[in-house]
């Protein structure tokens, strides 16, 4: 599991690469919590375009951060779900809960619009 981080228009964008399972979920949870504290931005965009596999352990980490941010009146959205990842999101019901976008640009525009709305 690798990741790249940047901020776009005040929104934290984390681009993940690799497979999200039991072996990587603890590292991911710790890293996302560290980044959220460090940047303290209103929203988090997770770009999953280079995530090739996710199981319920990985989904648990994403849902956990979604709940945490929602409690803080912040948002988490995801970008570019690959077919296996999309299927796991669908089966778990996360697709109905977490907003998805096709690209980072659309996601940044989407969350920024909601902030100003």
């Amino acid at each position, binding site marked *: 599991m690798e990741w790249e981080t940047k901020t776009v228009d005040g929104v934290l964008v984390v681009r993940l690469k690799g*497979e999200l*399972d*039991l*072996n990587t979920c603890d590292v991911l949870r710790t890293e996302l919590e560290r980044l959220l504290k460090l940047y303290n931005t209103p929203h988090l965009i997770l770009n999953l375009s280079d995530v090739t*596999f996710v*199981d*319920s*352990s990985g*989904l*648990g980490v994403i*849902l*956990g951060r979604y709940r945490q941010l929602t409690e803080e009146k912040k948002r988490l959205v995801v970008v570019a779900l690959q*077919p*296996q990842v999309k*299927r*796991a999101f669908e*089966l*778990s019901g996360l697709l109905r809960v977490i907003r998805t976008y096709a690209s980072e640009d659309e996601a940044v525009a989407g969350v920024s619009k909601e902030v100003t709305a």
Partner: protein
Amino acid sequence: MASANQFKLEFKSRPENVGFARVVVAAFATQIDFTLSDVEDIKGAISEAVTNAVIHGYGNDPDGTITIHGAIYDGQLEVIVEDHGVGIENIPQALQPGFSTVPDRLGLGFSFMQSFMDTIEVRSQPGRGTRVIMTKRVPRRADHAEQGLS
């Protein structure tokens, strides 16, 4: 019945072996005519079964032993994931979507296995361990064609 091709894989209950196990079973499954989507489903089911063995069966003890038996016969894949951990007291409860004994987990492991495979059977004895038996059949050719169009 045609003679079965089969394998047996034994490994420690360590998180890094979850990915190892799903890749081995996926490679074995490609010997019959599964679609790429089927193989992804098989990987997902193995990931959930092995994860359950690591965190529930052995309570994250990395020195437990997990065994996977795989077989291909009559156009289907059969996989048995077995641990010798604590076992499951209440199997119907464990199979309920959203049920988990561990906080911060979705409790969807068995639901995913049921969705990804054609059949799943769970046998367990408290204190003795758990055996999950899953099968998946290669779709008929006509189904393949339909999937290709979608």
